[in-house]
């Protein structure tokens, strides 16, 4: 009898757990078709020493039309911290994902709302102290031995940099969100353009370019 009850509860609880599965997203920055490894000098002419960026304001549309909007949706992807590349969202079972939207960077309202915690805490090294605002995207390294440093951000008109990104796909539980930086590093002439450390036109142009480099599989 006891055993019966136990199995009964077990099956009920597993049903409850099943009812809400998760969509797991793995963010995977790649270069020349290979996942980027920090400080890897063995491969190309490019060595990346630091890669950090914010993905925020996630919203998921499922094929039944239901939209899930994540609250406090701020994710700092930091390649030096492997756990940060995985993001999970609740998903109703048997419904697949139609569409996913998010921002590369932090929205303007958050930028003027004072100090925040968690991934937005200023100790994360993604905040400009002398021209308030979040650094949306940070990449540092060398190309052909020439050092480069791109700190992209800015929320004020006319140089807003946060980019809305939309990916369509039929996927249910796991997906990989690629960021192919090959084009980014190829299109920039590192000899003449290797340092951006403040908001402005260049910051904006490079952010627009980055937004085109995300795709999902």
């Amino acid at each position: 009898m006891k055993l019966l009850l136990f199995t009964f509860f077990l099956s009920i609880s597993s049903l409850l757990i099943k009812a809400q599965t998760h969509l797991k997203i793995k963010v995977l920055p790649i270069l020349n078709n290979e996942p980027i490894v920090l400080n890897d000098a063995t491969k190309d002419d490019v060595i990346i020493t630091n890669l950090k960026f914010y993905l925020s304001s996630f919203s998921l549309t499922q094929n039944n039309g239901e939209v899930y909007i994540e609250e406090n949706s701020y994710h700092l992807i930091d390649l030096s911290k492997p756990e940060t590349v995985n993001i999970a969202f609740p998903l109703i079972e048997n419904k697949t994902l139609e569409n996913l939207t998010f921002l590369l960077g932090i929205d303007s309202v958050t930028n003027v709302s004072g100090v925040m915690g968690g991934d937005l805490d200023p100790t994360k090294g993604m905040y400009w102290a002398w021209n308030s605002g979040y650094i949306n995207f940070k990449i540092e390294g060398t190309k052909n031995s020439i050092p480069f440093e791109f700190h992209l951000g800015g929320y004020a008109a006319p140089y807003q940099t946060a980019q809305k990104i939309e990916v369509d796909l039929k996927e249910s539980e796991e997906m990989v969100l690629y960021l192919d930086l090959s084009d980014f590093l190829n299109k920039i002439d590192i000899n003449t353009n290797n340092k951006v450390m403040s908001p402005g036109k260049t910051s904006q142009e490079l952010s627009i370019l980055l937004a085109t480099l995300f795709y999902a599989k």
Partner: protein
Amino acid sequence: MRNKKNEILTLLFFFLLIGTALNIPSSSYFIIKYPDYFPKPLYDFNKNPLTPEGVELGRHLFYDPILSKDSSISCSNCHLSYTAFTHVDHKLSHGINDSIGTRNSPSLINLAWSELFMWDGAVNHLDVQALAPISHPAEMGESIENVVVKLQSTKRYPMLFQQVFNDSIITGEKLLKVISQFELTLVSQNSKYDSVMRKETVFNNQEQRGYKVFQNNCNSCHTEPLFTSYQFKNNGLAIDSILNDVGRYRITNNPNDSLKFKIPTLRNIEFSYPYMHDGRFKSISEVLKHYEKGILYSSTLANELKTPIGLTHEEKVDLTAFLLTLTDRDFLFNSNFSYPKTNNIEITEGYK
């Protein structure tokens, strides 16, 4: 008369006993006290509710050189309570290793009403302001990451953060919020001007005449009752060829903002010399001479100053007499604003 302890005027705060629906361990909140002729503060207190413990902790941090790289400089080195929280006798601020900054430290008064901070508005919220001096190589030369590590490794601070947040883990967010809490209490609202506004006293004849001169010539920018409109204007100062400071232009990249600086409050102006973003004037009379004869014409010069301000000798004397009515001794000598006397958080009678 000035020292009369008046209930309405008692500086700053009173306790509100609220059943703690919010997740704040303190049993009580601080409410900033300001007169009814002040506008509403811009600061969103809901996001950082002031508590007596939080304000005290912020005060400890404001006076603690641990925030600088070599533990030599605290915020109070450049912002002294007895001079309305500015750095007297220094045109440009002095930081660690005797490095000299590029600007004069402004007074810290009525910050809850300000939208943008710094002479050029580089900082968009009070909570993130402290990041600037902490990280500036010529000011405190530190990083917020390291300050948090240093504070966490002390005996004292984890305990104090525990008292405020019910959690002894220190974060950048908590650190900055309690510094703001202290700064938000720096409200000046008890000068003679305020007593006159409250109809508790009257200006003498000279002050009254000076008040008229002020309203005609200065109030459009140094707007009552806060004595600033918090806008950015070019008030006709010649650019310093060495510092080459273009003001707001650096932030907005908009040429129309060239040479514009944040209009400073004139409250406690008697004590906050030297004046202007680079501290070029030592006295009020030098400032008045500038407005009378020194205005330099340029494309971004404020409209208000395009026609010369002509002031007779008497008018200047009267105007100065009025400006001195903005001195608030309850602010300058408030014991709740000065160096904390103990290592612990003690909620003094003065707060009640």
